[in-house]
């Protein structure tokens, strides 16, 4: 069964290029990444801190501003005319797409709510045009939607600084979901929530996604969230996608040495085993290791790893890995 993907990311490359006191720096934060997101699918993305997840999301959403530059490849949404992408789309086209087709909950966006506006006004600013109807209709819809996120109607009267971190985070999720977009990009949207509220919020995202048949790209470090919520999971390390597949397969049979480490570093209640972080230092992306970027920290590294970059290979149905030590077909 092959369905047309709603998003196809094809050999996408985006680098930060800057110079500081005459020192030129190029950071390959998104380096040749390919994957598809199907309609009605939640695609999760995890990976090392500063491996390029946020940069990948920005590039996909067409938010490419200096020093970030698109170097190659493309990200194509099926709701865009063929051979066009969000990057370079004209502002009117973007405005139409934003909120109704594509909404993007940026990492840390709970901190960029306009401090001078009450939450009610922020909702009016963003969503009223898309929702339509009278003021009281809009108010009712907003209140109902907030209650799905376990927020009291009184938050509408508050200013952002009067709310706790988790409350602001839920306000941004509410803003991004109230227009029921086809595609939601969510970058660490639930980090500030307690586990009870988080579970409810994830359930809400899941049910909106099911009701609408929409798709979600969900970035989080919380592997428990990936396990519970996502259908597919991609793992990033140093600007590269190193493994991707069905979430259950990634958890049950992780192949890439970095993925294995990541999954085994998780502590559990009731388990007192000493857990350690990865040895060695995180790669300096301005000067990444040759060959496989994981090789200085990899227990399985061999000579070829130091010189040749491993390509993504298909090792099982919908399971791809980029590692010389894992056998597979070229994909």
């Amino acid at each position: 069964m092959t369905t047309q993907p709603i998003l196809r990311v094809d050999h996408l490359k985006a680098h930060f290029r800057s110079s500081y006191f005459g020192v030129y720096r190029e950071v390959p934060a998104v380096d040749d990444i390919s994957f598809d997101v199907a309609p009605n699918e939640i695609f999760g993305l995890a990976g090392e801190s500063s491996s390029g997840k946020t940069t990948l999301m920005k590039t996909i959403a067409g938010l490419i501003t200096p020093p970030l530059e698109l170097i190659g490849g493309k990200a194509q949404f099926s709701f865009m005319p063929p051979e066009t992408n969000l990057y370079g789309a004209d502002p009117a086209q973007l405005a139409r797409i934003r909120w109704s087709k594509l909404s993007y909950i940026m990492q840390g966006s709970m901190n960029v709510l306009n401090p001078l506006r009450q939450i009610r006004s922020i909702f009016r600013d963003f969503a009223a045009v898309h929702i339509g109807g009278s003021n009281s209709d809009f108010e009712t819809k907003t209140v109902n939607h907030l209650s799905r996120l376990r927020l009291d109607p009184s938050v509408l009267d508050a200013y952002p600084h009067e709310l706790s971190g988790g409350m602001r985070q839920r306000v941004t999720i509410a803003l991004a979901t109230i227009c029921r977009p086809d595609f939601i990009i969510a970058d660490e949207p639930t980090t500030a929530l307690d586990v009870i509220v988080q579970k409810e919020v994830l359930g809400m995202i899941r049910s909106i996604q099911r009701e609408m048949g929409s798709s979600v790209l969900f970035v989080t470090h919380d592997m428990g969230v990936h396990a519970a919520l996502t259908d597919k999971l991609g793992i990033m390390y140093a600007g590269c996608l190193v493994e991707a597949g069905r979430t259950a397969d990634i958890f049950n049979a992780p192949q890439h040495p970095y993925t294995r480490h990541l999954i085994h570093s998780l502590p559990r209640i009731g388990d007192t085993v000493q857990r350690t972080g990865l040895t060695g230092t995180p790669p300096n992306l301005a000067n990444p290791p040759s060959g496989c970027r994981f090789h200085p920290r990899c227990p399985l590294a061999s000579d070829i790893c130091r010189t040749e970059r491993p390509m993504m290979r298909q090792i099982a149905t919908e399971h791809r890995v980029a590692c010389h030590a894992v056998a597979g077909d070229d994909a």
Partner: protein
Amino acid sequence: MTALLTLNNVSKSFTRGGILSRHRIEAVKNVSFTIENNRPEIFAIIGESGSGKTTLARMILGMQEVSGGSLTLEGNRVGGRTRKERLAFMAKVQPIFQNPFEAFNPLKKIDYYLLLTAMRFGGAVDIAEAEAAADVALRQVGLSLSEIRGRFPHEMSGGQLQRVAIARALVSKPRLIIADEPVSMVDASLRMAIVNLFGELRDKLGLSIIYITHDLATAYYIADRLIIMQKGEVVEAGAAREVLSDPQHPYSRQLRDAVLSPQVTGSLSIQ
């Protein structure tokens, strides 16, 4: 034993909303606990979103007045002192905030903060000493001064920024660190490296850490004692592993049961 930090029935109320919709919020209600001077520990605060954890942290840091009760550090009341006393206090108690994006001024370079902290609270007398102190602290969190020099906050990832914030807190060699969700933005591997680092700071430097988190598994892993908060109140308190293995209060049980396990996939797919 003398107390490092004592909270005695600490409360805080706010009024929120516009003139017409003003209402009162009891953000923190009668919270009491003590952290001893000679028994460094990691003291976790977990609980509901909006239950007053950050407000409590801000009161301990002297950033917000208490509305009721008393809060003392080594016997002295927190808040309302001269500038000199305030600097001495700030050297002893250092914060790591909930969100690294909030903690840094976007217009100032990252190394500026570390050098400033080293000069102000860390006893460094010149730039060379300040740089050395900053580099030591950065290396404790897996970074180095040369890596971050000249960079602005927006040029760093969330995880990098949080590590810088922890390094900045370490520069003044404090007695107590108040860490408000310090690992919520970093990967699982780094998360373990950072909580292990907290353990080392406790064991080797005799530092106490108030660790506010939504991650019950790391609280179980590293904390000595914990309190669980709901609606401004402490609903359960005790040894971290005991409480989390066998929570007594209904809210604590609910919380423990809602933890999403990475061992069970797809638990949210059927509604």
